[in-house]
């Protein structure tokens, strides 16, 4: 081995070791556990049990439904918000302030923020008081223990991810492209449809995938806002690990969740693949 190659290899080895230790090894442990009995014999029994159990399918359906809706609402709110920050705000201090406002909640604990929403969404919480005060509803609505409540909490927590991803993509679109489009006769709406939106799509997809993954794997927010009435998949996994102590079955649940999520993300990615001539 030459003298110059050794330090390079050492430098590469460090991140590789980190990756193996913190990403590959835990995944391998979970995967192996899911394919073995507590005694260590290889088995598919855990997966068969999941597949055969209608309750699991129900929970999966609820989990992915909440994830999909969270993603949709985040996209619908996040894209215009990112547009506002990148395209409309011209005064830099205000833009900076808005971005800080968006990011600062990420520094606080999920638990604190979810508890906050518990208070706000309660029977006598600010949201119900406000809606009654405005005359929109007569009796308090039930948010806690409904999918709507979980949705509100998840959207609040995950919105920054999509705004940052889309904002980054929008900021990278060369303004000269908009000029060129207008010059060639496209109205502002036409320019958005044919130029800006397609160019921001990779950012939007990245943000949406991130939000979806975080939403379907979220535990704290659904757990606190469900009031015990709704179960999402991460709660099932948590039960297996914390109460039942069945690491093998819990592992199988984790892997099932992972595979389904990745499959959905892959399908979504394939569908949104930009048309290539």
């Amino acid at each position, binding site marked *: 081995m030459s003298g110059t190659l050794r330090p390079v290899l050492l430098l590469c080895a460090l991140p590789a070791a980190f990756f193996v230790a913190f990403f590959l090894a835990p995944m391998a442990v979970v995967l192996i556990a899911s394919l073995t009995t507590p005694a260590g014999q290889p088995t598919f029994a855990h997966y068969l049990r999941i597949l055969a159990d209608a309750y699991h399918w129900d929970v999966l359906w609820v989990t992915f439904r909440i994830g999909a809706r969270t993603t949709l609402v985040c996209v619908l709110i996040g894209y215009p918000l990112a547009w506002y920050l990148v395209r409309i705000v011209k005064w830099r201090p205000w833009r900076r302030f808005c971005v800080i406002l968006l990011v600062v909640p990420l520094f606080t604990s999920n638990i604190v923020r979810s508890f906050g929403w518990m208070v706000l969404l309660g029977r006598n919480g600010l949201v119900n008081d406000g809606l009654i005060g405005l005359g929109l509803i007569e009796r308090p609505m039930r948010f806690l223990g409904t999918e709507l409540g979980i949705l509100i909490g998840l959207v609040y927590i995950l919105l920054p991810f999509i705004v940052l991803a889309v904002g980054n993509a929008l900021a990278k679109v060369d303004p000269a492209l908009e000029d060129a489009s207008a*010059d*060639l006769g496209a109205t502002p709406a036409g320019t958005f449809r044919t130029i800006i939106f397609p160019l921001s799509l990779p950012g939007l997809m990245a943000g949406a995938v991130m939000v979806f993954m975080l939403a379907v794997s979220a535990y704290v927010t659904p757990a606190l806002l469900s009031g015990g009435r709704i179960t999402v998949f991460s709660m099932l996994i948590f039960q297996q690990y914390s109460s039942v102590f069945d690491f093998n079955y819990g592992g199988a649940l984790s892997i099932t969740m992972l595979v389904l999520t990745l499959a959905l993300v892959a399908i979504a990615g394939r569908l949104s693949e*930009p048309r290539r001539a």
Partner: protein
Amino acid sequence: MSAPILAIDGLSKHFGGQPALTAIELAVEQGEFIALLGPSGCGKTTLLRCIAGFLSPEAGTIRLAGEDVTRLPPYRRPLNTVFQNYALFPHMSVADNVAYGPCRQGTPKGQAAKRAAEALELVGLAGFGERLPAQLSGGQQQRVALARAIVNRPQLLLLDEPLSALDLKLRKKVQGELKQIQHRLGIAFLFVTHDQEEAMTMADRIVLMNRGRIEQIGRGQDIYARPATRFAADFIGDANLLAAERRGDGSVSLLDGAIILPASDEQQGAFTGVLRPEDILVGTEPAAGRLALPAVVSEIVHVGSHASVALTVGATTLTARLAPSALAGLTTSQPVFANIRLADLSLVPGDA
């Protein structure tokens, strides 16, 4: 002659109180090749963006083929632009880029594709339609930008320093091609450049700009021969700028009285004498029919095709341009004569 394709009247534009364009007057005839020439920051690109509709002027009107378009958005103006860095749509194929204009104007897809193919053929890129812009060289991208801008057959094409990103050799080649295409299509070109040589070789007329104003409009050789302002004299070609003084009897003295021009009423206020370096004959003897100014050679710089000779005349330094053959025997510190013709000397307003 028919109405000008572009007529600009009293156009002014400010950026935060700073004037960027002041009282611009310009008329472009059909099929003309006009160069907007000036140093960076002179307002040439601002003027182009006003014409294209990306900036709205505070005062003045812009007419295209007789129609007032001053308040129209860019997408309603019947002209097209070749952008400085081409601004090709990176997510579309070359063919889709070129077909973008016809498609936006409601041309059916098949017909738009056909016209795009024709435009690509015109710029010598037939068969490149399937590629993405990123897969093309800079020169090819530049042609795609041109094809995209001419596919709608506008009567006026704006070009914003379209060749500045190309290397020198390619630039020369594309200059010729651009001129050919312009000739074939009969479209008026308004071409922004800071390169005076490019403007001289390509344009029918040059619009020389400085500090948001038009200094002079005219054919390149006319501006060179008869600059209207000190700036025009200095920017187009090389010039010796000589401080001029009006004397009591109305005559004009240059080079501390070495040159006296007869009285004229045309020039008022301060002005400057302009003498082109190639109009100075350097020799050890006074030349017949010329005014011989005693001078000392202070420096000789060889530039290949010619030599640049610095001459000290009194307190002033003149630069003369000599053919290498005329240099024989010339050395620094040598006393010589700078032989000039008064007819070659022009006076322009402004201080030297």
